[in-house]
């Protein structure tokens, strides 16, 4: 499975890449929603981990754009963000996010959410 990490912080992308690569994902990175849109047009992405607050195109706008296009209907998306308010969680889920996790997170928390999304960790090929 191919995963895309979208976050303007290189350090967060590095941590998430290590977690996902460690459980078998091939991982791509993008620094904002616009970069991510360009990337998913070129290659199939199964899972996107999306930050909310980013320059150019934020995570919620990215999710809305993806959900408008039937070509990406199978892409699973999880918001990974500092936005902790309950109305923000609702906003992300309404936009089309499948799951929501707040920073700071641990490896175990990310894996737990992936399992909740129905993603089989042990069988995820590289």
């Amino acid at each position: 499975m191919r995963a895309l990490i979208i976050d303007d912080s290189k350090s967060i992308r590095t941590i998430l890449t290590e977690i996902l690569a460690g459980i078998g994902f091939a991982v791509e990175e993008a620094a904002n929603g616009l970069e991510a849109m360009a990337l998913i047009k070129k290659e199939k992405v199964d899972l996107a981990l999306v930050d909310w607050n980013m320059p150019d195109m934020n995570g919620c706008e990215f999710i809305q754009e993806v959900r408008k296009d039937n070509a990406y209907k199978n892409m699973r998306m999880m918001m990974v963000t500092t936005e902790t308010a309950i109305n923000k969680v609702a906003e992300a889920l309404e936009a089309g996010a499948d799951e929501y996790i707040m920073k700071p997170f641990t490896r175990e928390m990310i894996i737990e959410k992936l399992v909740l999304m129905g993603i089989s960790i042990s069988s995820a090929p590289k």
Partner: protein
Amino acid sequence: MAFECEAEISQFVTDIWSTFLSMKVSPTDKPFKPKGKDNTLAGCVQITGEWQGAVTLYAPKEIGKRVAATMYGLDEKEVDNQQVQDVIGEITNILAGNIKSLLPAPCSISLPCVAITDYNLHHPGSETVSAVNFDCEGLSILVVLLQEHVK
């Protein structure tokens, strides 16, 4: 009304450091002292909306290097300024997001900015409502919550 939240800031900072970085920090009464010239990292996130102000985090460059080395899986000597600023920005961002959950809604947080400085960012029209000093492996960190003067 001024919004004080030293206890919550202490909890957030302790959680962020332990969860993300596996590093121990603890609140201290010892005041933050800059260590040498141009050796302090200052991260800042603005809060706008129903409550207006800013969250600032001050830390010596040594801490920035340790944290960046942990996050990037590198040796401290291999870490560059950009990586150090990125991690301090992200930690300030996470902290501001946590603090925002205590404030009256709706509020928005800005993207973080980080400077390598002599210490003490100037925020005209704002006053400190909470300031908490931390000890991190013998080095000091300061978190300040500033609120804009209510007109």
